[in-house]
């Protein structure tokens, strides 16, 4: 197709147009807006950002009433939170004496700082809610059934990571709300027999919520948990494709197969 379209193009009038075309073609190998089935296929699998999608999807999986778009909404929220989170890192400082001042700065000194913080905060609350609703959707539509058992497990892990992200982020403003919510939350972890107290000390870097806890929660919140969540999100998407797309009424009564599909 590439050869034929290049041959069909009229001879370039000047070298500049040819040069521009060369650059464009090196970036986007196939056409501009794809018009036919072949172009539509290439548009998806020739793009790094689109190739997590299959080239074709079932009409059923596009019905908003079936999925309520919850998985896409959760992903969108995660992207927005990553973007605003990195932006917030420019202003934030994980120090018990400095963190709260940075919160005040976001309200007064930083241009649109309040919007930045508010979007991050409400996005985080919504993400917890949407991920739980997504799990409920999957349950009520029987979408965890074979061959999708493993993706249900990955989903549980993603829910736990989401809760972990929200919980670690809760401490960072270092106000009364943050301090005491984390004190209460981590004391729940301390009730577990044998493992509880060491786990709590490991999380807090001490026996009470203080500077050590703030740094640990910060590193968990901006590096470790988002990294883990990104990896398992990729596994989650990958498995959707490997399991034959979203669940579908046609998946009923298929005899189980050995090995993967």
């Amino acid at each position, binding site marked *: 197709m590439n050869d034929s379209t290049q041959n069909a193009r009229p001879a370039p009038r000047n070298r500049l147009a040819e040069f521009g075309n060369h650059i464009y073609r090196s970036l986007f190998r196939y056409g501009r807006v794809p018009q036919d089935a072949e172009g539509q296929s290439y548009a998806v699998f020739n793009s790094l950002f689109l190739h997590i999608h299959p080239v074709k999807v079932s009409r059923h999986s596009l019905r908003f009433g079936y999925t309520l778009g919850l998985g896409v*909404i959760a992903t969108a929220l995660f992207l927005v939170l990553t973007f605003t989170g990195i932006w917030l890192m420019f202003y934030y400082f994980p120090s018990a004496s400095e963190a709260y001042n940075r919160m005040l700065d976001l309200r007064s000194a930083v241009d649109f700082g309040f919007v930045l913080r508010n979007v991050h905060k409400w996005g985080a609350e919504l993400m917890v809610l949407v991920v739980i609703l997504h799990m409920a959707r999957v349950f009520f539509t029987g979408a965890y059934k074979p061959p999708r058992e493993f993706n249900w497990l990955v989903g549980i892990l993603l829910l736990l990571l989401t809760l972990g992200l929200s919980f670690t982020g809760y401490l960072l403003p270092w106000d009364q709300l943050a301090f005491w919510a984390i004190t209460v939350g981590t004391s729940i972890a301390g009730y577990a027999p044998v493992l*509880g107290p060491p786990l709590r000390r490991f999380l807090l870097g001490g026996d009470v919520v203080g500077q050590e806890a703030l740094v640990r929660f910060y590193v968990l919140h901006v590096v470790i948990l988002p990294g883990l969540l990104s990896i398992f999100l990729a596994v989650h998407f990958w498995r959707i494709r490997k399991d034959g797309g979203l669940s579908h009424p046609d998946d009923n009564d298929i005899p189980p197969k050995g090995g993967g599909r």
Partner: protein
Amino acid sequence: MNEVNTKHVYPEDPSKTYGLMELVKGTKPTVGLQPDDMVFTWPHLLVRELTLFVVVVAVLLVLAFLFNAPLEELANPNHPPNPAKAPWYFLGLQELVSYSAVIGGVMIPTLIVLGLALVPFVDRKRTGIGVWFAKERSLANGLFLTFLILMLVLIIVGMFFRGPNWGFVIPWESAQ
């Protein structure tokens, strides 16, 4: 691409006869293809994903301009609020902990996660997939709905009906 299951799309009914009815023009070879319900990701799925993304960003911006994220006084380890409350999604746990620390704070959460993880390995029948609240699945769906409602009730109790020393309060009376 993965195999596409077309058995219901093109069912063969032994009581009927099949014949060539029409010839259609097309732009791609369709020899041996059965009708399926597949559409191209570009543009069908991508347009929907992008639209949803824009809606999410718009909703967040509206929320951000309307409501400020809470910010209380500087953290003070010597002045605990009474009651001190966990984030909303842990309020159900905190409520359970108020009855029993070990059962509510450790055993029940562990059982919830283990129970959820076991769901697809216990409920293996391939029926009722792909539709909301399928009749064949009313038991499983009923159990899960009960679980969700229970969690919601615990969270609401923890959020609105708990006052100083985690005592029971009526929110609309204590407000006065």
